[in-house]
């Protein structure tokens, strides 16, 4: 890549030149071309520059998945600011935490979002993009009023916030170059995204996964992006898929399950060539059932806020249910034990990853220099994987795993087995000490219409499918389980319920 570049220009300019009339953004009732997208981005950039916001300043974007989100994100990058996407429906306190932590000086949001009432000492400019006043302001600036900022390969470009499944959200900055398709081997080599693709990321852009799918894999490769501003529901997903006819669909496992149960026939007739599941391990049973019914490959892709990109995935033509697939070059992975030594094939180990887009540091530990980790640095993700030859399977989060009578217990494995029981809608497993050792305890949500099930039935079910030490010693029943806003189980809260 060029030594100096601008991420917005690098992502979009070639598609603008190739065919500016091509649809960049698609919604139920809107269609925006690459030319129009670029013009709006430049207007937002000019607006920010006129306000005297400085290069490197953080710009918080608390907007739904909408054209305005993309204008604000790529407009900020055009003039060298650091966009920070965050969930627009979070409570005011959580948004203020991110405002303070990031030190953002400007905020893009909508009047309906709790962010509209958020304040912080450093926040100077608040733009409500859904108001007539903002529309007049944006129309009044010239799209050609500012020049693109130059970025070096290690200049910070954007920042993600982790979802907080283990506590407070953490800022994870990335270099701007991490957005560019030449670093996106998942989209280029695994999914083989082409400009004819129509990409629908049900996972929102405030997640790294959603941002990657939309900005890098979608716009960066000249494809068309489908935007769904609302929270996904059976109704709006059915409508969006049948209207916009995506070729690639990205979502967490729970959404795939919802689609399988409520929109199987639409998926079959939609023209989707592959579905990508991420955010949580894709259960084997769901993967198998999804492909059997729809004949669409569903790929489990693994990445994190720290890598931004997916670096382990199944391949569309070679999906092995229950596994995460293989590493995606140029990323490298290794599995190590407590002494940091490689584990033998077939044994679980801590996953470490090395690659071109690793985060340089957590925002709270930031240094004056934006230089990244040393080349070839390894990052331990906090996950335990099992490798057989080159095939990798997720075992669990290392924080969640525990030893019972000297044997490793993976809550995820137990949950996957329990979820195949016809009466169980959702479940989570955590550890409790009984008689001096940790034992698995299951927290269960029953399906609608089932009010009771005997613990003994569940015990027999688990006992015949799991090693003895993984059989839960207690089953607790709940209406719902504590989850993060992104749908991940908050295991640390299970002990409180």
């Amino acid at each position: 890549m060029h030594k100096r570049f601008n991420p917005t220009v690098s992502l979009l300019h070639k598609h603008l030149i190739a065919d500016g009339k091509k649809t960049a953004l698609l919604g139920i009732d809107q269609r925006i071309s690459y030319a129009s997208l670029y013009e709006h981005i430049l207007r937002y950039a000019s607006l920010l520059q006129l306000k005297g916001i400085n290069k490197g300043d953080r710009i918080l974007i608390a907007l739904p998945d909408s054209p305005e989100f993309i204008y604000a994100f790529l407009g900020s990058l055009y003039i060298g600011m650091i966009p920070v996407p965050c969930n627009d429906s979070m409570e005011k306190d959580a948004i203020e935490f991110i405002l303070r932590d990031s030190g953002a000086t400007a905020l893009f949001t909508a009047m309906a979002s709790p962010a509209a009432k958020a304040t912080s000492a450093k926040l100077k400019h608040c733009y409500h993009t859904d108001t007539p006043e903002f529309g007049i302001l944006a129309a009044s600036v010239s799209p050609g009023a500012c020049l693109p900022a130059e970025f070096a390969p290690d200049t910070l470009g954007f920042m993600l916030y982790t979802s907080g499944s283990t506590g407070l959200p953490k800022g994870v900055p990335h270099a701007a170059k991490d957005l560019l398709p030449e670093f996106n081997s998942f989209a280029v080599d695994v999914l083989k995204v082409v400009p004819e693709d129509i990409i629908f990321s049900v996972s929102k852009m405030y997640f790294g996964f959603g941002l990657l799918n939309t900005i890098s894999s979608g716009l960066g490769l000249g494809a068309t992006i489908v935007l769904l501003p609302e929270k996904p529901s059976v109704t709006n997903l059915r409508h969006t898929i049948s209207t916009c006819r995506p070729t690639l669909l990205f979502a967490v496992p729970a959404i795939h399950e919802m689609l399988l149960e409520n929109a199987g026939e639409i998926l079959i007739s939609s023209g989707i060539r592959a579905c990508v599941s991420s955010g949580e391990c894709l259960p084997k049973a769901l993967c198998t059932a999804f492909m059997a019914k729809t004949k669409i490959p569903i790929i489990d892709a693994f990445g994190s806020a720290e890598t931004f990109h997916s670096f382990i995935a199944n391949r569309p033509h070679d999906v092995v249910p229950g596994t995460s697939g293989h590493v995606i070059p140029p990323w490298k992975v290794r599995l190590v034990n407590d002494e940091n030594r490689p584990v033998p094939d077939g044994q679980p180990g801590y996953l470490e990853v090395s690659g071109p887009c690793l985060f340089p540091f957590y925002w709270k530990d930031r240094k004056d220099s934006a230089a990244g980790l040393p080349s070839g640095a390894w990052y331990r993700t906090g996950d335990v994987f099992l490798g057989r030859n080159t095939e990798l399977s997720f075992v669990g989060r290392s924080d969640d795993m525990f030893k019972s009578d000297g044997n490793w217990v993976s809550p995820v494995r137990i949950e996957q087995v329990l979820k195949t029981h016809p009466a169980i809608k959702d479940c989570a497993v955590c550890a409790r000490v009984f008689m001096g050792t940790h034992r698995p305890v299951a927290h269960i949500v029953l399906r609608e219409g089932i009010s009771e099930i005997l613990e003994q039935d569940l015990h027999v079910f688990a006992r015949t499918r799991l090693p003895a030490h993984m059989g839960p010693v207690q089953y607790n029943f709940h209406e719902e389980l504590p989850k993060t806003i992104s749908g991940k189980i908050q295991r640390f809260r299970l002990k409180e319920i």
Partner: protein
Amino acid sequence: MAVTTKDIMRIFKELGVEGPLDPDVALLDQGVDSIDLPRAAAAIEKKYKIDLSDAKCEQLKTITLFAKFVSSKL
């Protein structure tokens, strides 16, 4: 209120452990396995609304000891 050996035996029966169980012989020597013991403790916790997380193996070794330990918690 005291918990009797009969109460403990009923719990084991509900958990699918086949009897008869001798109240004074080590449970592990009567076909009760190392998972059934914490399951029984967990079931008793629920039934009597007590916390048995500090129970040690020797305190639950036999039905009689089990009943005595649970009674001490009530």
